[in-house]
């Protein structure tokens, strides 16, 4: 749980793939929002599944891990 996910609300088209993969981390409202934490691998898998590449994952030092 060292990685941090942020959502580019302008890029998110609410596809819902992140919520399907990691519901403990992401939920869809108007756009996706981060609602909790979870394993790094799950967070990364959800980010990589985003068709809009709207989830940016950084490490604890602020370095971008994905995309």
């Amino acid at each position, binding site marked *: 749980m060292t990685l941090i996910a942020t959502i*580019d*609300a302008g*890029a998110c088209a609410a*596809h819902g793939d992140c919520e399907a993969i990691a519901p403990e981390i992401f939920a869809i409202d*108007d756009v996706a929002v981060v609602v909790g934490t979870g394993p790094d691998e799950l967070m990364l898998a959800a980010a990589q599944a985003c068709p809009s*590449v709207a989830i940016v994952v950084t490490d604890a030092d602020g370095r*971008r891990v*994905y*995309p």
Partner: protein
Amino acid sequence: MSDGTVIAGGGLAAQRCAETLRRAGYEGRVRMVCGETHAPYDRPPLSKAVLATTGAEDDLGLRPASWYTDHAVELLLGTRAAALDCTRHVVTLADGRALGYEQLLIATGSRPRRLGLLDGFANVHTLRTLEDARALRAALAGGGRLVIVGAGFIGQEVAAAAAKAGVDTTIVDAADAPLAALLGPAVGTWFADLHRSEGVDVILGATVAAATGAGCVGRLTLSDGRRLACDHVLVGVGVDPDVAWLAGSGLDPAVVRVGAEGHTGAPGVFAAGDATGTGHWESAARQGMVAARAMLGVGSSRPAAASFWSDLYDTRVHYLGDAPCADAATIDGDPAQRDFSVTFTRAGAPVAVLLVGRSHDLPNARALLAA
């Protein structure tokens, strides 16, 4: 008036509308008239993975079958909307059923443009549906010579897939460079060179002037006099909204015009996706969601710049913004290595970005365009 929401169409915009309604707690009936015999599925892979392997069909569904029962979304498969009566609030289907609606989403998508010269030949393909992709895959499995008419993204993706499968492939386009109208001649030429470096022949500034063959077209004559022998032809010259069924409804049966929230002006009638002439995956998804929210009286956040992506020879290409309005373009990186970005500017301000092999730059590109 009753019977909830009818969604005419079963593509991405339709799916996103249904999802958004249920997510927001909408309890009315939701019926989706899918047209095809499949539940809503993802089209972008049709010109990519699905052409390569039958296995790629397994993950095409936008949601598992259980989603539709869990969310009480009724799928009407294998029939399509045939007529609309905006006054009586009734959609009549091709099979004769009449569906009353309180709210209607027109999301019947688009259909590929055809070339009259090539109509009626059994080996001339277009690519829009899963059946189209299956037919093209089966044809290409036998090898032979493929001529692709049109160097848009569909044509280019099929060229990449066909070349990879060992099919002798030629692209023909009327412009002097692929995508020149969108990205300008310099970037367009990069796409032509990309295909040529993969063994695909690219013929530019030419159109199909004649086609000959019995049953199947065996030879194309181009406007420059060149003759191309072919075993298969793919026509990829764009799409038109599939909304002819709206004739007589009072709405435009060529393209449905909508306001920012997807409303058509007819009471309770909204539209989204290709039916409105927008024509991209991202915008279809967004419009389906926005229309659903408007049906419920909820606003939506302002949409981001238009964007889409393509996969060509294992290189991912992203495009954001509005390049045709640009007056200058700057290339950063190494086009020869398929690793570069193009920033399009107008009067010095960024208006569009093309990323080749640089998905990691997407957040920066979006920030640049939003600034």
